């Protein structure tokens, strides 16, 4: 039985018709054309389908679209403003924190969240924080550097 769900995606109100057994991942990619959300392992192991749901990072392959009724979703498309990259996106570019780029949207979103809740993370805390995401190219060292490099701009913006 198709359901109509209402959600806010990257600040925009959306109404989507979904099936009971449709994943949030599939709705974001196929119905809302947000291809930064990667479908990779489909079983909650690689973390590349990570999105922010009501501000918190979650794996969208383990969530039904129907569960998200009334919720707010942010994908990496929602981080830049007017074509200007956000500090964490800039830091990824400047630190070469990617090779193929497939995992980058997920890492950028997760890093953004980790820095927003604690801009003073130690290297160990950063590594623990990103432990649920897999970068098959092995750019972890540069990803950690990018997170460290972006930290000051999160300190400046926190009260």
């Amino acid at each position, binding site marked *: 039985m198709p359901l109509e769900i209402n959600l806010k995606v990257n600040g925009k109100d959306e109404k989507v018709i979904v099936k*009971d057994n449709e994943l949030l991942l599939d709705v974001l990619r196929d119905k809302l054309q947000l291809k930064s959300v990667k479908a990779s392992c489909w079983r909650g192991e690689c973390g590349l389908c990570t999105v922010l749901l009501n501000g918190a990072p979650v*794996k969208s392959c383990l969530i039904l679209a*129907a569960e998200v009724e009334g919720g707010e979703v942010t994908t990496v498309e929602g981080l830049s403003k007017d074509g200007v990259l956000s500090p964490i996106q800039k830091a990824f570019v400047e630190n070469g924190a990617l090779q193929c780029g497939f995992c980058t949207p997920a890492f950028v979103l997760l890093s953004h969240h980790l820095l927003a809740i604690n801009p003073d993370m130690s290297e160990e805390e950063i590594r*623990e924080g990103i432990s649920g995401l897999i970068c098959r190219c092995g750019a972890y060292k540069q990803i950690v550097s990018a997170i460290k490099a972006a930290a000051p701009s999160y300190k400046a913006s926190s009260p």
Partner: protein
Amino acid sequence: MSFGSPYLTLPEFQYIRPKSLQEILELLDRHGEEARILAGGVALISFMKERLVAPTYVIDIKALKGFNRIEHTPGKGLSIGPTTTMTEIAAYEPVKQRYGALHDAASLVGDITLRNRATLVGNICEALPWNDGLASLTLFDAQLTLKSLQSERLLRVEEFIKGIMETDLRPDEVITSIRIPEPPENSRSIYVKTTSRSEFSIANIGALVSNPKTPKKRLVRLAYAAAAPTPIRVPEAEEVFRRPGKLSDLMDEAMPIIIEKVAPMTDMHASSEYRTHLIDILTRKVLKELMEGK
């Protein structure tokens, strides 16, 4: 948790989002055998993809007000709702201060993206022997409240877990809370597992100690999971620590009792010998830390 099945899509089902407990209980009463409760979905959605379960009805209980509560009442203890997430438990100040082993366990589940969805009740219902909720809740004598239209039962976690992925949950029941009594006065507790990030942890230990320096008043609790099909306490070994003596001697005396009670098994993840070895060194490590502060 993956069993390597080729299915990556979900089976067909009807999604239902009740607004009241009465509605949940009526749905379970009518459809119990064909229904599954959805909280965080970390286990259920994975299991459905693997076709380990294929319910006709998926009952999402997240719309219920108060189901995501976490509340500490001094003198009475802690109450955790069925949709409270690991992130919420790990961040709750009274848990950090009084229930150290539970804080450790909630912080060690998967990674942040899973902890934001995974619930402690779901962790118990999934009933995989290495799940982090098991040893930590057993350590604190936690009780589950199970409700159906006809009945209400209270079960200790170690009674609820019947085996690997087997629980005492009846098809018409829903868990409405985990109640955890106050830990003993002046106690400190920790929880460790063999590898902090492994899906298949092979020995999980919760330990609690109060009054470590005074043998007469000293109280030691030890709870084990992953080491056996169901989580267990080891009261006979805990008694050993009420006697005076050097900690290393007491541990030498308690260890064979623990190993016999836990009866570590051989499976595809580890041999019985290896599990025995890990239980030995981890038990000594946590007790040293709690008794001597190292």
